[in-house]
């Protein structure tokens, strides 16, 4: 296989790019998926006071500012050597659960859902949230908006500001909640549980009730047997806010469980000549290329990965939903735990199970007597040096690592963002989707882009850098080259200037 190095100059156009190379027979030899990388973040941060980081990092991305804010706040806990009280931890986790509810809801109804609710072959103009609402009813659209609205209200109340929270501080949280506020949030959390149950039922009715969709989930085109990563609590249940990082192998056996601060001992990053983005892999297994299986260090960190890496869910209704998914998809129990599900499209189902868990967890926490404790701050007395903070972002394990001088001025910063964990699996999924659609020189242009999009949509990759600018969707370009390197097809959704 000829190695193709693409001139880096062509990679700076700030949009998603997929390049597919055919061999002499006209089949897919290789496919590359490139996302514009945001550069210079470390340089931007060095020299600033570390306590600014929760406010700076939540600007990295308009999609999951709360996740960055939380990872950053936890990194400050570690940096300044302060342990938050259990009340603060509960308050943070409750806030974080509200964020999860909005994020997973948005993804399912606006982005992932259309593929299932309308079908992958529906005209693209209908395959969006409007199409979903048209099919399932305006009432549901209203519920989606209401769900976002009531949880944004909680996020704003607790975070001190909408969208870009500012409340996190080393060892604490800048405000407590009153009993009145607690009651208000409790009602919101109850409504979230109902909405999550409803969403799961909708998914089951529409997807499981349609053999064509079930076959699509089970199809080889969307299957990869990789390692799975997720954060677990002391019972090996999924937790978004805190815990140990657990990795299971493709057969579901625990491969390693480590404290987030030790991430560099377990995860290394592979560099490819054709992209600036690095591909994290498991050090102990090694980089074997873009292949799945037990001998390849490629791992995945998504909602499905979190469920695969855990032994179950911590809340009752989510536990039922979890078991139902594994049973339905034919997973067997070995040593008391389900074998991993490798079907990438099942990630959408896993996301809804997580939505239910987040809703139940939020309700549990808001009913906790400690949640209105007015003491939410601790005094910082230690000299800062180095700290790691880690949470599960909706898109995967998110790690913030800061180094400072004795005055708390940043000297070095390293982030591994949720999506980064999944670059290798996304690249593999894109290639597989292309291979299933391009045979012997026949390029099926119609639907090709959507099938490829579906492959990476399941991962919900965060390319927020492209969402800020108008016209507001990710500009994606697919170029197909023949064996001689000539362009045979170019599919683009970039704005062409007349």
């Amino acid at each position, binding site marked *: 296989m000829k190695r193709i190095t693409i001139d880096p100059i062509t990679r700076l156009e700030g949009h998603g790019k997929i390049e597919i190379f055919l061999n002499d027979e006209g089949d897919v030899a290789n496919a590359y998926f490139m996302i514009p990388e945001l550069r210079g973040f470390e340089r931007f941060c060095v020299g600033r006071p570390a306590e600014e980081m929760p406010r*700076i990092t939540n*600007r990295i991305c308009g999609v999951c500012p709360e996740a960055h804010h939380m990872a950053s706040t936890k990194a400050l806990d570690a940096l300044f050597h302060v342990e938050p009280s259990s009340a603060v931890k509960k308050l943070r986790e409750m806030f974080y659960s509200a964020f999860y509810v909005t994020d997973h809801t948005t993804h399912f109804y606006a982005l992932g859902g259309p593929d299932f609710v309308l079908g992958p072959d529906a005209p*693209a103009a209908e395959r*969006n*949230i409007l199409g979903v609402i048209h099919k399932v009813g305006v009432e549901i659209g209203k519920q989606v908006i209401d769900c976002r609205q009531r949880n944004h209200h909680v996020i704003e109340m607790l975070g001190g500001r909408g*969208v870009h929270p500012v409340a996190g501080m080393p060892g604490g949280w800048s405000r407590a909640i009153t009993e009145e506020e607690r009651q208000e949030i409790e009602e919101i959390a109850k409504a979230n549980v109902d909405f999550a149950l409803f969403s799961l039922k909708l998914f089951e009715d529409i997807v499981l009730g349609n053999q064509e969709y079930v076959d699509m989930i089970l199809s080889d085109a969307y299957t990869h047997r990789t390692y799975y990563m997720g954060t677990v609590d002391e019972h090996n249940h999924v937790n978004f806010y805190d815990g140990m990082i657990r990795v299971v192998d493709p057969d579901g056996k625990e491969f390693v469980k480590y404290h987030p601060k030790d991430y560099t001992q377990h995860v290394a990053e592979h560099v490819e000549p054709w992209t600036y983005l690095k591909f994290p892999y498991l050090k102990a297994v090694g980089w074997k290329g873009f292949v799945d299986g037990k001998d390849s260090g490629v791992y995945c960190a998504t909602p499905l990965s979190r469920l695969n890496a855990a032994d179950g869910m911590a809340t009752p209704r989510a536990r039922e939903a979890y078991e139902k998914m594994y049973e339905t998809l034919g997973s067997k129990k070995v040593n008391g735990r389900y074998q991993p599900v490798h079907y990438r499209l099942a990630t959408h189902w896993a996301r809804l199970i997580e939505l239910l868990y987040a809703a139940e967890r939020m309700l549990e926490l808001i009913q906790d007597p400690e949640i209105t404790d007015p003491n939410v701050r601790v005094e910082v007395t230690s000299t800062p040096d180095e700290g790691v903070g880690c949470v599960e972002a909706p898109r995967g394990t998110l790690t913030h690592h800061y180094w400072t001088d004795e005055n708390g001025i940043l000297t070095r910063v390293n982030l591994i963002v949720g999506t980064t964990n999944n670059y290798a699996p996304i690249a593999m999924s894109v290639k597989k989707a292309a291979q299933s659609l391009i045979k012997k020189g026949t390029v099926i242009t119609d639907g090709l882009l959507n099938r490829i999009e579906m492959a990476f949509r399941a991962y919900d990759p965060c390319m927020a850098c*492209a969402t800020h*600018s108008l*016209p507001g969707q990710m500009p994606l370009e697919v170029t197909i080259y023949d064996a001689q390197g000539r362009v045979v097809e170019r599919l683009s959704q*970039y704005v062409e200037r007349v």
Partner: protein
Amino acid sequence: MKRTLILGVGNPILTDDGVGVRVAEAVREALPADAPVDVREASVGGLTLMETMVGYDRVILIDAFLSRGGIPGTIRRLSLEDLRTISPTRHSASAHDTSLVTALEMGRRMGLPLPDEIVIYAVEAENVTDFGEGLTPAVAAAVPQVVAAVLSEIHGHEGVLPGMQTSF
């Protein structure tokens, strides 16, 4: 009196992506304290952006824009209709959400009180991939013009100034 929102969209720490936010800040400075206008910034898109507009009669939105071969610093005054024509309907790809056009359409169907009048000032960006709080020279040079146009727009005049484009 029309309820007007001036909305600077973009990421203030991502070089030219911050142009909308910079314009909004300058407009806030230039307006008298009692001006019946709200000025806000948002680093979001899609549904959240639409939700920000609820309850206003008129929104003037400022954002960075990227087009193939575009000249950095070019200012365009666009309508929602213009945005609709360039928002590809062939594919539904979006980083996480949906496009503003789709989000507004959805909001209307839900019966949310959304503005009838949306004016968009789009500034062609040069660099939206490097972290930084400054704008590139061509984009920075466009800021005073956009500010002037927005102020004129607030007073009911169409803010098209010499050299500004109103289409693609």
